[in-house]
């Protein structure tokens, strides 16, 4: 698990995919990218999200998620989680989850499960910034 400043660039994402190729026993990688959505609230659009995190606890909880995924899905060989902190603009990528597994079934199911656990358990907060620079704290549903 890594927290990075700002968005995940396409170069960073490509590098992670390329690194997945080092796991030659894998036949499937399932990749989830979370993007900042230009939501509209009372007629105002979201231009960016500012993320903040309790970093020490994020790392500890992500480690628990990692162990839980590896024990539930025995075909999974590797798991990569990256999340942004700081400001990420609408249309930019703020989270990446990549699960590498022997076969596609475990890769895709483990990826969906990891995303759910990340949203539920990682102490990360987001503040929506609108076009007029007003802000609103947002919670996961």
């Amino acid at each position, binding site marked *: 698990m890594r927290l990075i400043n700002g968005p995940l660039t396409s170069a960073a994402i490509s590098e992670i995919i390329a690194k997945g190729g080092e796991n030659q026993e894998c036949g499937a990688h399932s990749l989830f990218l979370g993007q900042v959505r230009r939501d509209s609230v009372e007629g105002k659009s979201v231009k960016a999200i500012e993320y903040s995190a309790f970093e020490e606890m994020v790392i500890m909880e992500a480690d628990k998620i990692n162990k839980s995924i590896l024990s539930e899905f025995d075909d999974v060989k590797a798991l990569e989680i990256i999340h942004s902190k700081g400001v990420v603009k609408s249309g930019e990528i703020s989270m990446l989850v990549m699960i590498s597994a022997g076969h596609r079934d475990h890769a895709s199911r483990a990826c969906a499960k990891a995303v759910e656990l*990340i*949203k539920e*358990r990682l*102490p*990360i907060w987001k503040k929506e910034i609108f076009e007029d620079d007003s802000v609103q704290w947002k919670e996961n549903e």
Partner: protein
Amino acid sequence: MEITVLFFGVLAEVTGTRTKHYRDIMAFGDLKHRIGDDYPEIVHYNFRVAVNNKIINDDPLLSPGDVVAYLPPFAGG
């Protein structure tokens, strides 16, 4: 004992601080009251509490140097 309290997300804004040190704390209830006195507005917000990075449900026994974190609902992803 001395306890460090961390505020995150909206609570860091409401309290105007991210870290505050409390001295002469006898128990968790005592700490809660001191925080409530300093920042009465936090009663209007939902949050959970973690002690040394673990979320607790009941009032914990505190030890000197413990770190207590006030965590608003998570919003990662």
